[in-house]
């Protein structure tokens, strides 16, 4: 039975006060949160160790400049406790990275919230996000899909992870109160001494069912438009043909953790005769080569763990709907194994475990 900590304040302020409490009481040595960094409204993640910097933070801001899961995994192992406020898909990415031995959860107090989605990065750069924020929070209160958010957020159904240390309930809640669900013993220990009403109550996921249904419906619509699996190579060329090979999708992907991607390695530096043979056989050769191959390769390497954060689509200079394709493909493959990326740290990644009976045929 998890505990509910209710604070009589607007969630943004309550979270800030909670983080201040953790820092002041030296329960943590640092706080990790989104923050507004300058007059241009730029937002980044900050690790704050001095409480005087806490007024810069905007922990619940609907923007994702980088997937925090990627940052946090590279922050481990850490010997002193850190509290981090991150979005559900960032939390799930962190879990996947832990399973892939790219980090540990030790010494982290992970705080997530039921997330309405984030705006595309450009909406922040051109400042239009400011006009949309009040509508965004209204939609959140009413458990609706806010307009202008990332396409991947519209179709996300894993927007309230109940297994994070702390889950702040935002969707469908009045803004005057902040409901923090303390899901782990760790969370209870950290929250000890913080002012607020404690009750025994579990986060009721069914409250979010209607929103989930809306999102699932949109997901089916989006997925039905991606027919790459039926149209084969031609379909892939239609989707990825305008790729310029910058590999930006890979660079921002939290799951793609390789320091040097195989597709950037010497393996793909072909000797001239190989290229000449292809040129002679086909009469033409696209340069640089392997445009589609890269995406298929990446799909097969990481789509199993794809958390649908949408960073890939947001940074694509050629506006390819990378996230939708990867989400669909990842879900179909993971679905065979009833696997949901980032659901549970104990759940093993199916392609990474071997069962003896799987080799039975070979053995016989």
């Amino acid at each position, binding site marked *: 039975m998890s505990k509910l900590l209710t604070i009589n304040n607007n969630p943004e302020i309550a979270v800030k006060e909670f983080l201040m409490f953790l820092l002041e009481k030296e329960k943590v040595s*640092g706080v990790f949160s989104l923050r507004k960094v300058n007059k241009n409204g730029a937002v980044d993640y900050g690790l704050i160790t001095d409480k005087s910097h806490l007024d810069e933070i905007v922990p619940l801001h609907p923007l994702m400049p980088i997937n925090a899961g990627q940052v946090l995994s590279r922050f481990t192992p850490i010997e002193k406790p850190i509290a981090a406020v991150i979005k559900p898909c960032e939390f799930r990415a962190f879990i996947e990275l832990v399973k892939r031995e790219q980090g540990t959860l030790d010494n982290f107090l992970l705080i997530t919230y039921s997330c309405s989605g984030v705006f595309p990065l450009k909406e922040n750069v051109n400042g239009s996000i400011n006009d949309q924020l009040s509508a965004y929070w209204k939609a959140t209160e009413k458990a609706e899909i806010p307009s202008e958010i990332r396409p991947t957020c519209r179709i996300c159904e894993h927007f309230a992870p109940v297994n994070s240390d702390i889950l702040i309930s935002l969707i469908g809640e009045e803004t005057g109160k902040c409901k923090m669900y303390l899901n782990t013993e760790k969370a209870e220990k950290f929250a000890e001494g913080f002012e607020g009403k404690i009750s025994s109550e579990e986060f009721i996921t069914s409250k979010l069912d209607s929103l989930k249904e809306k999102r699932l419906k949109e997901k089916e619509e989006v997925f039905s438009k991606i027919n790459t699996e039926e149209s084969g190579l031609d379909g892939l060329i239609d989707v990825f043909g*305008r790729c310029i090979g910058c590999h930006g999708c890979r*660079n921002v992907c939290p799951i793609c953790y390789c320091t040097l991607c195989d597709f950037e390695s010497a393996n793909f530096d072909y000797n001239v005769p190989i290229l000449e043979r292809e040129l002679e056989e086909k*009469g033409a050769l696209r340069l640089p080569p392997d445009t589609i191959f890269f995406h298929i390769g990446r799909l097969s390497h990481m789509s199993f763990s794809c958390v649908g954060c949408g960073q890939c689509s947001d940074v694509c200079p050629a506006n390819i709907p990378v996230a939708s394709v990867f989400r669909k493909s990842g879900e179909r493959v993971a679905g065979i194994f009833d696997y949901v990326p980032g659901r549970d740290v104990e759940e093993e990644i199916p392609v990474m475990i071997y069962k003896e009976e799987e080799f039975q045929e070979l053995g016989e």
Partner: protein
Amino acid sequence: MTEVSKKGVKLTSEKVRKEILQFFKNAMESKLIDAVMMPMQVPSKDSYAWILIKDINLLEDMNPIAPIMPINAANALKRYTRKGKGKFKIAVLMRPCEIRATIELTKLKQIELEDVILLSYDCVGALPMQDYIADPENNEKKFDKILTENNWNSEDLKPVCNICDKFSLSASDVHFGLKDNEIIILSNSEKGEKLLSELKIEDKKDDKIWAEKINKIKIEKAKNRQKSFKEIKTMTDGFTNLQDTFAHCIGCHNCQSVCPICYCRQCYFDSSVSKPNSDVKLIRAENKGALAFPLDRLMFHIGRMSHMSLSCVSCGLCSDACPVDIPVANIFSYMASETQKTFEYSAGESVGDALPMRDYKLDELGELGKLVKSAEAGESENE
């Protein structure tokens, strides 16, 4: 024989493309070249890709002057010749900034030019890639109009194209000059001269009317350039302004990935050296009270600048690829103009100009130089 436009008739975009394609057709038919690299529209018709063709029938599908530059041609050519020369003679048609990038990459040993003939043309500029992708049909028309009207100052073009004063003859072997009513072909190297004479094409390298026209445009562009540089200087002056300029950067390194000069397989800033352990991060945070993530974004840009600005050709791909609209290209172009001036170097102008950082002169070594010289003098006395 290339058909030459009749004087008095306005040169249209259609005619420019047709005549350039005819040139390549003749060269392929005469077996003077085996393969041609040029832009071709992708099947979804919303962008272009670099295609190397050997089958002459595919030539008619190529667009020699594409409205956009999704990939710098030097990067495409690099992937074919990085491991040395092959058995085919290849002709490549590029924009002048791509020629310059090719020359830089040749010096950096990433391209082998022995069996490559470089061709260029007077470039009006390119449209921003994302504008084109959003509406290919209209942008195709828009660009045709710019080309036909010879509009060298269109606001629809990439900002970096509007400040480019090296849009004409560069270090290519053969160049197509665009006059108001005809297209002229001129050679710019022995290789080019030989090709033109073998094709029996009149070499118009002394065309004064064309040279005058180009000079006039150059002067206009140089003015735009100075204006932009002034703005960039104000925008980036001092640490705080520099930090503000790059504040939206998310550290995706797209600018580096698409940069033709950044040829490192693994950038220093992506290597494990740039991923310090968590205790180091915590110490850094504690020193300042807060630490920003992704780490060292400004450091990345300054580092990249110091690594590549001497070879920057101002192609503008960095700006095209930036997901948060930082005017990377104009900033780097400004920096490059300053650093290149310092070393009296012009990126991509000639394969013969040594890269300043790779060229050691004895007198540069100062004191050590003097010591070496006196030692040498001592040696010659002993002889």
